[in-house]
């Protein structure tokens, strides 16, 4: 059995818990043992908190990594932002003994230590590489015949220097395809959802980033957007609500890859508590039951 520690981050348990529910059901079905991380904290956020105080950023990351290390398992993240932080911090700590020493000096005060013995992976990597496409295919008992647009999310492209930045997005594409959906190319897959610029310029974020994506995807005739990152998910769902202030009306269902996988595995949509979404995902799930 494949064993990992599942790092949920902040957004999933607090704002879109249906992703957590779906992920637990998916992991169980494909034989992926996902241990909880008792006492984990925010990853923390990969850009501003890193700039604010890199040592604090590294220390908080190292603390989270040390919890998985104590359990004796590698760590996987459901959120792209958590992936960026934890994979980057892990790489820095492993490659810089002086930074590792400083961080452990601080962690000692909290009775913890990080030795740098674990790896960090994105959940799409774990499902694709460790579980395997064939194993997942076995579980797809209800292929979903809908047309979807994909949004990978910027942090998913993070690779070591010179690595293939499309490696993980291609895995996500492949995993989505397994659920039976038709992936529609709308031309702006790579464009950011606008979440990072929301704090700096809300109107720009909504009109120059989210809106072009929605417009192109809807024109391509999709039923839903499939996402992996909860931050992008919030931007897509809340962004559609906020765009109404500007007289722009979109109501596209936005579904997480884990939820789509769970539905294709035949998990009843009522068990996923899709009511936490701010877009008509429940309606989409009901519609899929009939197709």
């Amino acid at each position: 059995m494949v064993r990992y520690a599942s790092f949920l981050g902040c957004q999933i348990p607090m704002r879109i818990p249906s992703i957590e529910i779906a992920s637990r059901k998916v992991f169980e079905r494909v034989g992926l043992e996902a241990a909880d991380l008792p006492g984990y904290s925010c990853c923390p956020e990969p850009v501003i908190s890193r700039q604010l105080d890199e040592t604090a950023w590294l220390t908080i990351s190292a603390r989270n990594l040390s919890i998985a290390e104590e359990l004796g398992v590698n760590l996987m993240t459901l959120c792209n932002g958590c992936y960026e932080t934890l994979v980057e911090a892990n790489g820095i700590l492993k490659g810089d003994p002086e930074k590792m020493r400083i961080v452990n000096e601080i962690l000692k005060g909290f009775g913890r230590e990080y030795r740098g013995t674990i790896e960090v992976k994105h959940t799409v990597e774990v499902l694709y590489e460790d579980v395997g496409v064939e194993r997942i295919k076995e579980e797809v008992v209800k292929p979903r015949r809908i047309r979807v647009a994909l949004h990978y999310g910027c942090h998913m492209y993070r690779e070591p220097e010179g690595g293939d930045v499309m490696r993980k997005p291609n895995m996500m594409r492949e995993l989505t395809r397994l659920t039976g959906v038709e992936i529609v190319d709308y031309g702006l897959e790579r464009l950011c959802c606008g979440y990072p610029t929301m704090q700096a310029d809300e109107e720009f974020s909504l009109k120059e980033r989210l809106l072009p994506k929605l417009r192109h995807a809807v024109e391509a005739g999709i039923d839903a957007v499939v996402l992996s990152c909860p931050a992008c998910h919030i931007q897509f769902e809340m962004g559609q609500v906020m765009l109404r202030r500007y007289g722009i009306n979109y109501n596209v269902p936005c579904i997480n890859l884990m939820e789509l996988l769970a539905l294709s595995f035949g998990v009843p949509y009522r068990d996923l508590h899709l009511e936490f979404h701010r877009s008509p995902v429940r309606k989409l799930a009901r519609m899929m039951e009939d197709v």
Partner: protein
Amino acid sequence: MSEALTSRQRVLLYNPERCTGCRFCEIACAYYHFKEITLEKAHLHITFNEEKGLFEATYCQHCDEPLCVAACPSDAVTKDPKTGWVKINSVRCIGCRTCTFICPLSVPWFNEERHISMKCDFCDGDPQCAKVCSPQAIRVVTREEAWRFNEETYLEVLTR
């Protein structure tokens, strides 16, 4: 700078084929220099053409023979002979904006609060824009590599 030093100079290189337009580079730049979450105070800018689906960036090339250095009437803009980075001395700058007008890319921008011109200072050797760029659209490379990339990417298009 000698030719050998020039080719080894560390510069920023932008690959539009990899950019997602997240503008984290701008946010990180402005936060690093001003501790503010804003796009307006960034030393580089990303633009996106929705119709053509194309990205482009405006950022300092830290030129071999910088026009901003030549044109500055108060000798506030200097090029470091060792690193090759072009910087504005904020104490010497008189805010005349000549550097902005002379720069082929209009990279230096006028800070209305401080009444001086500002530009990329290469973050003293550790550019934050490159650090936070997940798809590695902005990277720190040698000028030689940047020349090669830009020739392949742009010259071919221009001479077509």
